[in-house]
């Protein structure tokens, strides 16, 4: 489903983040990319999401060479296929939970009823319905994390990418997050999670752990 062929990524012609990475992910797999900060994990996620283009090599998702797609096609691809959970959540703090979550749906120009239906289904699934009118800036870290997960899932994407999702959470909230991931894995979504949190290294539902070190995968 997802393939990276001999991917090299160099930033500013100086920093080589990836040094010829070859990876394959199957549909429905739960993959943990393990590695220290700066090892290249986030770069791999950004390349799969089409947020970055490789310096050379190719990224293929569902037989589509996304590394060769023009930018606006990458945005469409991302909107339809990818849910991205960021380390710092990347929510808009001055908007409500509702508005943050429906944001990825707006470019689709859905009917109001359909939009609300998708929203309600998502907030119920991630247990944040009671906070839907609250401003994001007034939420706790764990609640913000749930909003971020809900936003990543509102489009029902086939692929979930999570970049250090528990870095700002305590252990209890991290365990909550793991349970949410377990639920998503059960829906046959392909999930790739980049982390250096040891909590993820011995989970029963993780299919593979790939170590990323100095821009190479082991």
């Amino acid at each position, binding site marked *: 489903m997802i393939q990276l062929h001999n991917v090299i990524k160099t930033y500013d012609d100086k920093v080589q983040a990836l040094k010829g990475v070859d990876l394959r992910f199957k549909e429905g797999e739960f993959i943990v990319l393990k590695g220290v900060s700066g090892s290249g994990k986030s770069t791999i996620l950004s390349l799969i999401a089409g947020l970055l283009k490789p310096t*050379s090599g190719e990224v293929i998702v569902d037989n589509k060479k996304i*590394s*060769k*797609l*023009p930018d606006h096609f990458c945005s469409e691809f991302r909107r339809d296929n990818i849910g991205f959970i960021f380390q710092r959540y990347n929510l808009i703090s001055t908007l409500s939970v509702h508005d943050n979550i429906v944001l990825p749906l707006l470019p689709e120009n859905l009917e109001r009823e359909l939009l609300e239906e998708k929203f309600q289904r998502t907030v119920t699934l991630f247990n944040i319905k009671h906070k839907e009118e609250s401003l994001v800036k007034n939420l706790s870290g764990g609640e913000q994390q749930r909003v971020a997960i809900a936003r990543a899932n509102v489009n029902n994407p086939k692929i979930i990418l999570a970049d250090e999702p528990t870095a700002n959470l305590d252990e209890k909230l991290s365990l909550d997050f793991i349970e949410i991931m377990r639920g998503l894995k059960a829906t046959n979504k392909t999930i790739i999670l980049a982390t250096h949190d040891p909590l993820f290294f011995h989970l029963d539902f993780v299919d593979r752990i790939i170590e990323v070190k100095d821009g190479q995968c082991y």
Partner: protein
Amino acid sequence: MLLTPEILTLDILNLLFLLFATVAFYFSVKILVQYKADETTALQYKLEKQSYLVATIIKFIFTIKIPLFIFFIFTLDKISTVLPGAMCGAGVVNATQYGTPLLMLKILNLYLFGYWIVLNNEDMKLEDRKYLKLKFFIFSFAYILLLIEIILQMSMFFSIDVNSVVDCCGSIYSTTSGTYMADIIGAKPLYLLTLFYGIYLFIIAAYIAKNRYFYSIFNLLFMIIALISLIGFFGTYIYELPTHHCPFCMLQKDYHYVGYFLYIFLFVGTFYGIIVGLIAFSKKESDLRFKISIFFDTLYVVVITAYPLFYYFKNGVFL
């Protein structure tokens, strides 16, 4: 040599365009020679990025160049007041050997630059960017024409002698001068009108049949015959003078600047008409261009036909 604020504006803008277009030309040639759509090497990704930048530069140059043509015509008309003998832009064009080829080239470039902009817009809509090489090839050709246009324009303004008497449009577009131009504009009105309305009917037929190739060809022919018939026949009704065949005087205040409207209608109509045959648009996009084209072609025909008709109703005779 003649320098007015308008000429300075045109020259400065042209030099800026030339500077940016030369940079774009360098990268265009590089992309043409080295770009391979299927390869995923560092060079190919770099060329893809450069293609966006270069296309943006070209798009802005051409987007300004097209309306600048109106300013050029306005400038010709304005400086005619300082040239002894000239009554309108025709005298200025004819004042030097560069004027006529410059005007012809500018009209050609108008269509070429417009074509490039539309082609670029289409290319940006496609995942595989199948027009990428074609658009840079066309730009490389357009760059040469742009270069010639700028050289001709500067040469023209540089060599205008304000102390020499020039011909006025009455003698330049005279039907008795024995030139090819005189033969063309002096053709019998019946021939001109048969061709003009005949081609317009063919355009309508091609529109109904939605045959983009015929529609394109007939629009090209329509553009040529419309200009000839405007000078040879319809213009005389705008001026209400049977011997006045000037394509420039109608741009003046005396004639309510009607020339600007007529030329814009003709350009928009024929441009969109020609373009449907050159680019394979989606059905929705193609239909839109067909509609724009037929609307402006028809608008031109209606407005230009109104002049002899009103003249007839007012005076009971044709010129």
